[in-house]
């Protein structure tokens, strides 16, 4: 495999990992906010 192709794959994997971790962090923060809401304040359907 060419070095340039290998570098592209590695960069894509790093970008996906960063995106996934960022989403996970954001979701954890949202979950903490939801947990901190007083009972009944959560939007329910």
């Amino acid at each position, binding site marked *: 495999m060419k070095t340039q192709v290998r570098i592209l*794959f590695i960069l894509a*994997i790093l970008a996906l990992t960063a*995106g*996934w971790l960022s*989403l996970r962090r954001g979701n954890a923060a949202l979950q903490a906010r939801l947990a901190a809401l007083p009972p009944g304040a959560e*939007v329910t359907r």
Partner: protein
Amino acid sequence: MRPNVELWLYLGAMIGLSHLVVVEGHARVDLERRLAVEPRELYRTLARSKSGLQVLDVRPDLAAGYEDSHIPGAIPLPGCDEARAPEAARGRVLRSVPTVVVSARGDEPEVHACVDRFTSARSLAGGMEAWSAASLPEDSGEYSPPSARAGGGCL
């Protein structure tokens, strides 16, 4: 390492990570639906020139609600029904755009039904009452679509 094995390893890692991103993305949308946006948080988002956010005012009475006062840039959609929207606002509501639904108080059952119609939507906590109480900018009058020549954000 053999080139074919290496290629499949990279592809496998990318597919696995893409799957994780999609799963977390769905979880994000679900969490955001359950958490109403606070007026000041919405104001900060709208103040950014390229927020890419659609604000829908779903208060049922157009004259006493939207035309009396509304969030700058909001699109009137009385009762979340496009058939009741003013002519100029029809066709401007997009289902796939991140959306904030504004009602009078923010806790009406029809607001939640409206939120469910969009791919990614939240309600405004406390509705227009909370926006006004926070002394945030308001507009009044009939809806006029943004001009193509206008620049910057809607605030």
